[in-house]
C-alpha cells in the first residue's frame, strides 16, 4: 500500500467542485462581508481619517479605524516564536508598510463593503522610507556564520578562483485560493473557517490578540487551496473577521483581494550574494564562501537562509557562509516555498557552473568531485546522502552526454539551445506531532490529526499508511484533518508534514495492533471482528513523533534530501525570450509514500524553480514602497504554454535515520536547485551569464549576437 501511486482520495469532490474551501463553507450560515482599506503610503502616519460617508453608506454595519477599533493584545517583539506572536490590527496611526490595513468595513454584502471602503477619506503624514536593498555596506552584523579553515587565504592561493555577486528578487507564494476567513462567534466560542497550513499553532497568537483563551477558538481548514508558506503565520483576515463577528454577533466573511495579498501577506525577501569559490585545477574545492545580504523589515526579521545552502552541499576545507540584514519599510518577510534554498541554490549552483567553466570541467564532474559523506557544518555522517546517484542517474536519463560543451554553440532554427544541471538539497526536519487512530466496531477506521492537506496529498498518504499498518482496505479509512479539535501536529510547512503525520499515525496503528494482539493473539483474520468482540466501544491510540532536538538520531546523523535537476532551454536569438524545452529531476528523498502524488509535488516544485529563474520578481517602487507589479497580469508565474514535458524520477530510497518508515519530505526539494539548472542552461545556450535574477530578455539582449 505504502508507495503505490494511488489517486487522491479527495479527488472526486475536488474535480466536481464539491470541496468547500474557507470562504465557501456554509457551516455558519449567511455571513456579513468585510473589506480592508490599505494604506496608500509606504511609511508615516494617518493624520486624519473620515469615515462618516462610509458609515452612512447602504448596508454598512461597521467601520473601524485605529480611532475606534477594539482593544487588542499589544504587538510583541521579534524575540519569540513567530507562530506565537500577537497581530493587532488598526492598533495605531502608524503606517509601517504600503497597504497596511488602516480601516475595516463590514457590510451586508461584499459590494457594499467594498464601495464603503472607497468612501473613506484619508490624509497622511508621509515620512521618508527605505525601500531599496542597497548592497553590502561597511558595518555589517554577520549572522548565522558557519566556518572552517581560512577562506581568505584559500582565495589568495587559488589557483582557480571565482568571486561574483548575484541578486535574487522578492518572491510571492500567491496560492490560487485567496486568503480568506469566515469567523463565527457563537455562545462564547470563536469558530474560524480559515485557509491555513497550520491550525493549532495559530490559536496562541490569535488568542493573545483577541484576548481570548486559545481553547475558545476553533479553526477548521478542511480544504486549502495551496499555501507554499503563505498560510503559515497569522494574518489580518483572521484577526479582523474575528473582531468583527465578536462585535456584531453575526458571522463575518473576509476575503483578501489578489492585489491585497501582495501587500498583506509576506514575501520572500530579496537578497544580494557574494560567492567566493577556489579550486585546484582538477576541481577540488579549496574555498567555498557565501555572504548574503537579506532584506528584512525594520521591526521583524524573517531571515531567509540564502547562504545556508553552502554549509553542507559540498566539501571544502575552507568555508564561510554567513548573512547580514538590511531593514526596509515593507511588510515582514515570510516563508515562501524553498525558503533559503530556492534563491540560495540558484546562486550557488550558478557559481559552481561558472567555476566548472573556468576549470574546463563537466559541471557534473565538478559536483561529484566535491561530494561528501560527512556534513561539513555539523561534522556528522550524512544519512541518505545520494546526491551523486541523483546526478549520475539524471545524466543518463536526460542524455547529458549530448550537451553542447561550448556555450552558444547549438542552434535549432532561431533558437539557441543549451543544457544545464544543478544540485538540490533540503534539510529534513521533524517536529513533535500526535495523531489519533481509532477503530470503530462498525468497520471503519478513523484517523484524526490537525495536519492540513494543502494539495500535498495528506488525506491520501495517511490513509495508505494506516491501511497498510492495520491490514484494512483504504475504503474503510476515514481521515479527518485540519481542525484544532484534533491531536496537534505541526501542520503543513517545512516539508515535515508527511513524515510527522504518517510516522505518528503508523505508531498509533502499531499500538492498536499490540493491544488487540494481547486479547486476540496475532492470528486473527478480521480486525473489526476482534474489535467488536473485545472492544465493543471501539479502540483508539495516539501515536507520537519527537522533535528533532529530542530525537537521538539527530545527534548522530545529519539528515537531508537530495536531488539533481537537468534543464534544456531555448533562447530566441532575436528577442532573448527564454523558453524551457524539457526538464528532468532525480530525487533521493527517503521512502516515497505515494508515487503519484509525490511525483506531482516534485514536478510542481521544479516549475517554481523555472519561474524563479525566468519570471518571478516582485518589483518595489523605490520612492513610494509599493509593489509595482502586484497582480497576476504583472507578477508572472508560468502558464501551460511555458511548461513542456517534465519528469521527476524518485530513486528507491529509505532513510532509517529519519524515522522507522524511512520517510522524508519533498515539498520544497523540487524547487531547490531547479532554478540553477535553468540559469546554467541559459548560459550554455547563449554564453551570457545573468547574475541578477530573474533572467529576462532585457538582460540577455546586450550579449546576444
Amino acid at each position, binding site marked *: 500500500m505504502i508507495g503505490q501511486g494511488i*489517486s*487522491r482520495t479527495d*479527488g*472526486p*469532490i*475536488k*474535480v*466536481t*467542485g*464539491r470541496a468547500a*474551501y474557507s*470562504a465557501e463553507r*456554509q457551516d455558519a450560515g449567511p455571513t456579513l462581508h468585510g473589506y480592508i482599506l490599505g494604506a496608500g503610503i509606504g511609511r508615516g502616519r494617518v493624520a486624519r481619517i473620515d469615515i462618516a460617508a462610509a458609515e452612512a*453608506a*447602504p*448596508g*454598512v454595519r461597521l467601520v473601524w479605524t485605529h480611532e475606534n477599533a477594539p482593544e487588542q493584545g499589544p504587538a510583541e517583539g521579534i524575540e519569540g516564536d513567530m507562530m506565537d506572536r500577537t497581530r493587532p490590527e488598526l492598533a495605531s496611526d502608524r503606517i509601517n508598510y504600503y497597504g497596511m490595513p488602516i480601516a475595516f468595513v463590514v457590510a451586508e*454584502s*461584499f*459590494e*457594499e463593503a467594498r*464601495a464603503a471602503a472607497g468612501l473613506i477619506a484619508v490624509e497622511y503624514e508621509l515620512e521618508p522610507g527605505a525601500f531599496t536593498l542597497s548592497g553590502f555596506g561597511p558595518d555589517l552584523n554577520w549572522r548565522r556564520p558557519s566556518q572552517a579553515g581560512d577562506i581568505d587565504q584559500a582565495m589568495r592561493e587559488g589557483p582557480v578562483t571565482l568571486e561574483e555577486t548575484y541578486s535574487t528578487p522578492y518572491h510571492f*507564494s*500567491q*496560492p*490560487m*485560493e*485567496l486568503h480568506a476567513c469566515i469567523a463565527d462567534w457563537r455562545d462564547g466560542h470563536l469558530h474560524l473557517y480559515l485557509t491555513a497550513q497550520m491550525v493549532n499553532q495559530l490559536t496562541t497568537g490569535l488568542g493573545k490578540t483577541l484576548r481570548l483563551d486559545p481553547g475558545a477558538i476553533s479553526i477548521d481548514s478542511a*480544504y*486549502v*487551496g*495551496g*499555501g*507554499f508558506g503563505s498560510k503559515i503565520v497569522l494574518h489580518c483576515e483572521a484577526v479582523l473577521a474575528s473582531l468583527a463577528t465578536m462585535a456584531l454577533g453575526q458571522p463575518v466573511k473576509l*476575503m483578501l483581494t*489578489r492585489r491585497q495579498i501582495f501587500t498583506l501577506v509576506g514575501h520572500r525577501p530579496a537578497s544580494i550574494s557574494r560567492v567566493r569559490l577556489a579550486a585546484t585545477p582538477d576541481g577540488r574545492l579549496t574555498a567555498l564562501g557565501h555572504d548574503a545580504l537579506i532584506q528584512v523589515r525594520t521591526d521583524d526579521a524573517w531571515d531567509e537562509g540564502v547562504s545556508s545552502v553552502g554549509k553542507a552541499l559540498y566539501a571544502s576545507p575552507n568555508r564561510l557562509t554567513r548573512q547580514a540584514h538590511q531593514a526596509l519599510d515593507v511588510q515582514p518577510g515570510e516563508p515562501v516555498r524553498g525558503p533559503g534554498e530556492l534563491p540560495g541554490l540558484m546562486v550557488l549552483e550558478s557559481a559552481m557552473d561558472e567555476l566548472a567553466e573556468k576549470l574546463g570541467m563537466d559541471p557534473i564532474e565538478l559536483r561529484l568531485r566535491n561530494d561528501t559523506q560527512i556534513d561539513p557544518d555539523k561534522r556528522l555522517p550524512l544519512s541518505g546522502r545520494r546526491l551523486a546517484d541523483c546526478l549520475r542517474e539524471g545524466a543518463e536519463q536526460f542524455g547529458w552526454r549530448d550537451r553542447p560543451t561550448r556555450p552558444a554553440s547549438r542552434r535549432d532554427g532561431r533558437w539557441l539551445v543549451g543544457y544545464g544541471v544543478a544540485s538540490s538539497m533540503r534539510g529534513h526536519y521533524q517536529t513533535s506531532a500526535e495523531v489519533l487512530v481509532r477503530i470503530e466496531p462498525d468497520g471503519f477506521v478513523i484517523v484524526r490529526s490537525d495536519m492540513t492537506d*494543502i*494539495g*500535498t*496529498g495528506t488525506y491520501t498518504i495517511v490513509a495508505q499508511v494506516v491501511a497498510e499498518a492495520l491490514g484494512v482496505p483504504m475504503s474503510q479509512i476515514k481521515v479527518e484533518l485540519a481542525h484544532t479539535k484534533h491531536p496537534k501536529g505541526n501542520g503543513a510547512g517545512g516539508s515535515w508534514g508527511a513524515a510527522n503525520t504518517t510516522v505518528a499515525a503508523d505508531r498509533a496503528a502499531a499500538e492498536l495492533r499490540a493491544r488487540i494482539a494481547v486479547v486476540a493473539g496475532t492470528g486473527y483474520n478480521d480486525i473489526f471482528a476482534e474489535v467488536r468482540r473485545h472492544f465493543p466501544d471501539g479502540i483508539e491510540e495516539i501515536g507520537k513523533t519527537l522533535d528533532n532536538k529530542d530525537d537521538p538520531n539527530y545527534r548522530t546523523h545529519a539528515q537531508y534530501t537530495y536531488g539533481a535537476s537537468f534543464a534544456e532551454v531555448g533562447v530566441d536569438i532575436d528577442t532573448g525570450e527564454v523558453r524551457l524545452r524539457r526538464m528532468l529531476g532525480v530525487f533521493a528523498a527517503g521512502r516515497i509514500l505515494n508515487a503519484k*502524488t509525490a*511525483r*506531482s*509535488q516534485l*514536478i*510542481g516544485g*521544479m*516549475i517554481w524553480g523555472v519561474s524563479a529563474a525566468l519570471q518571478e520578481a516582485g518589483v518595489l517602487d523605490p520612492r513610494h514602497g509599493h509593489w509595482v507589479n502586484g*497582480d*497576476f*497580469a504583472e507578477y508572472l*508565474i*508560468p*502558464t*501551460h*504554454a511555458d*511548461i*513542456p*514535458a517534465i*519528469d521527476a524520477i524518485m530513486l528507491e530510497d529509505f532513510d532509517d535515520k529519519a524515522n522507522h518508515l524511512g520517510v522524508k519530505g519533498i515539498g520544497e526539494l523540487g524547487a531547490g536547485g531547479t532554478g540553477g539548472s535553468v540559469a546554467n542552461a541559459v548560459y550554455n545556450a547563449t554564453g551570457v551569464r545573468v547574475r541578477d535574477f530573474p533572467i529576462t530578455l532585457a538582460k540577455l539582449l546586450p550579449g546576444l549576437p
Partner: protein
Amino acid sequence: MTATPRLPVTLSVNGETRTLTLDPRVTLLDALREHLLLTGTKKGCDQGQCGACTVLVNGRRINSCLSLAVMHEGDEISTIEGLGTPEALHPMQAAFIEHDGFQCGYCTPGQILSSLSVIEEIRAGVPSHVTGDLEAPIPLSDAEIRERMSGNLCRCAAYPNIMAAIRDYLGEGA
C-alpha cells in the same frame, strides 16, 4: 441609510431556471458563489488574470469575474456542478483524478471546463497563437492545447499532469 437598489435577473444554471434579485454590481461569479451557493466556480483573482472562475455561457467559456450577473438575463450558464458528480464523474474529471491533474484543487474546476472548451474550439477551427497555417484544419497537438489552456493558472503547477489528463481523455475517443 438608503438601501442598495436591486434588479431582477433570470438565469438558466446547469439547466435549472434561477431568478435572483441582485445589486447590479454583483458579478456572475459572485452570483453563483454567494447567491446560488454554487462554490465550485472559484475566485482566484477577481480580475480576469487567472481563469479559476471559468464557466460556460451559452456554451462558450468566459471569466465569470469580469461579467455582471444582470448582463446575463436569459443566458445558459454551465458550471462544474453541472458536469459530473463524485459518484458519476465526467470522463474528463476522471482523467484529472487518474493523472493527478491538480494538487490543491482550487483552479481545477476552471481547468476542467477550459479543457473541454479547448477541444471544441480546436475542432471548430478557432485559431490560436501557435496555429501554423491559419487556413488548414487545426491539429489537436500538445502545443495547441497548452496555448489554449494558458488562461488557467495553476500555482501548484500541475500543468504536465493536466496535459496528460487531456491526452488520455482524447485517447478515449471523446
